[in-house]
């Protein structure tokens, strides 16, 4: 499938349809491919598309779609939602974009492979449902299933909501996984003090590196209020536990109704804080209060928080539902 994508990209570059290609470049190991822009056919030889290409490229299109000429971008099913949402918010120039929809069978998480006890990994090979892991301390195998990112376990399905052409290996029919809100429900079922303890434990690890924010396609503000001294809220570190909460509550609230649940925030968190749960809680609330809503499904509908009906639930619902 990688060869197919390279061939298409080269063809589109050659016939002048696109001026550049946004994809992934091989890393110096099997598992650290990076998002990259390719402008020549030769450079595309470094292009890679495999299980470790988890990064969502849609946010890079804010920058790239402003450039002269079209940009070819490869989007996985879940990335297309982010892309659509950015179109809705006028952040991306769709006309300047050429999208090849690529299939996805769940992206791999190197941390899970490491957590399974593999140290000093020299290579990882995907062979069907099995991963062959070669390390300095010996070789190992593990089921691919066990090494996929958490977000892929609750995959939204194989459908691409926006694209110009589909790659051959795309499975648009791939069903959505069940249980997307299970973790949220589990927390909801806890007592408030348990929930508080849980989040204290998690958020206390936050080092305020802003990776979650900077990777988030919805957090694409020209300047974040947490960086802006005009707002009286700028912070560079979490000097107290309040600031951890403040940052993550406001961040999640700002993207509520706009977050497509792409899961990048949790993927990039160096401290493994399950940040996606905050976003997913908002999604689950919005679904419950205002009807099912999937951000990025289209480019025109009003986001739930910039919309209303006259008979919306009252805030007291939070108290009433126990």
């Amino acid at each position, binding site marked *: 499938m990688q060869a197919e994508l390279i061939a298409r990209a080269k063809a589109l570059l050659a016939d002048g349809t696109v001026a550049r290609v946004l994809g992934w470049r091989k890393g110096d190991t099997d598992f*650290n491919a990076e998002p990259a822009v390719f402008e020549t056919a030769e450079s595309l030889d470094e292009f890679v598309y495999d299980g470790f290409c988890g990064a969502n490229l849609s946010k890079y299109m804010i920058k790239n779609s402003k450039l002269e000429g079209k940009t070819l971008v490869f989007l996985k099913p879940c990335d297309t939602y982010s892309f659509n949402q950015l179109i809705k918010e006028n952040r991306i120039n769709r006309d300047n974009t050429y999208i090849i929809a690529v299939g996805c069978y769940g992206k791999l998480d190197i941390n899970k492979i490491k957590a399974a006890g593999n140290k000093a990994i020299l290579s990882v090979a995907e062979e069907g449902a099995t991963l062959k892991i070669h390390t300095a301390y010996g070789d190992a195998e593990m089921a691919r299933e066990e090494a996929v990112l958490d977000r892929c376990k609750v995959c939204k399905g194989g459908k691409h909501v926006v694209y110009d052409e589909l790659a051959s290996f795309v499975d648009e029919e791939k069903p959505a996984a069940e249980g997307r809100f299970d973790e949220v429900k589990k927390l909801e079922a806890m007592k408030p003090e348990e929930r508080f303890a849980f989040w204290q434990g998690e958020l206390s690890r936050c080092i305020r590196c802003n*990776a979650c924010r900077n990777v988030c396609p919805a957090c694409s503000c020209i300047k974040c209020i947490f960086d802006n001294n005009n707002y009286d809220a700028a912070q560079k570190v979490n000097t107290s536990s309040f600031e951890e909460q403040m940052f993550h509550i406001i961040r999640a609230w700002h993207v509520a109704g706009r977050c497509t649940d792409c899961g990048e925030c949790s993927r*990039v968190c160096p401290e493994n804080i399950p940040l996606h749960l905050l976003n997913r809680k908002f999604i689950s609330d919005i679904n419950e209060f205002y009807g099912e809503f999937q951000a990025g499904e289209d480019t025109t509908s009003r986001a739930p928080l910039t919309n209303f009906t006259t008979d919306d639930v009252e805030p007291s619902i939070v108290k009433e539902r126990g």
Partner: protein
Amino acid sequence: MFKITNDQMPKLLKAIAETKDLFLPINNNGVTNFGFYKEDCTPDLDTLRTVKSAKDAFFPQSEGLYAVTTEDGKFTISEEEYCNKDFVVFGVRPCDVRSFVVLDKVFLSDPVDTYYAARREHGIVVSLACHQPDESCFCATFDIDAAEPEADVAMWNIEGGYAWEAKTEKGQALTESIKALLEEADVAKEVETEKNCIRTILSVLPNSKLDVSAFGAGKTDDLFNSPMWTELSNACLGCGTCTFSCPTCQCYDIKDFNTGHGVSRYRCWDSCMYHDFTLCAHGTNRQTQMQRFRQRFMHKLVYFPDREGMFSCVGCGRCVDKCPQSLNIVKVIKRMGGNSNV
């Protein structure tokens, strides 16, 4: 040399914590970071790398400097107390130990950073050799021996426990204070085996000895205008993961916080990856992410050697592991300086 068994280790930690603050790797919900010892914490000496480095011990992510209060229109300034009590930083890996040397160059040179100096004076570093180095380790590039910790006390993993060797006076004193829990033993042979083991693994790791000949003092003109930077930095999100996990990044900002009954002035880490880094009234700090990205690596690999005669990277590999988009100093070194492992 002493030996301490795995069973005795918790007691040892407790004993140290009784008289001194103890800063050590603690596991919190599967993630290990340095933190202060508490009765119910889960010390974790097995994890090779904590997410954040040990640098917090001497240069915490944020620290109060002084507070200003007003009453009846008068200002009162109360300074934060300097560190005045010995504390132990435990389980520091050799790369992090070296990072203190880098920090010392910055903070102990004139004018001396008194807050840092006070902590350095009172800190006792207990280091632990890297039992199982990882693929992202490249400390040997900077002549750090993962098998030979250079701290107040050095420790090695050996069968059934750890070998313990005091290397300095501070280390001796600490050893004396907990001698009851240590077992005098001739473990030199086991330590030697461990060292060999570590070195053997390092030799097969892909990055263990990178070629950094393209970098170092005087290389500014060669590298600054390289077209490579654009390509290398293209995917950079501008987050602070690399800087905040880095043991040698030493940049900070000074900020004020209005507590309602006064203003507390504190300093906190800053990241050169941030667009408001070193922003001041003139408003023309580094404008593009490429410039910021270049600054970070040029600083570590060229400017610091220019000024201090040493690289300010210790090859711990944290940024290699943690960069959200898999950009890192190893890629920079390899791409700009040739691909070979020497």
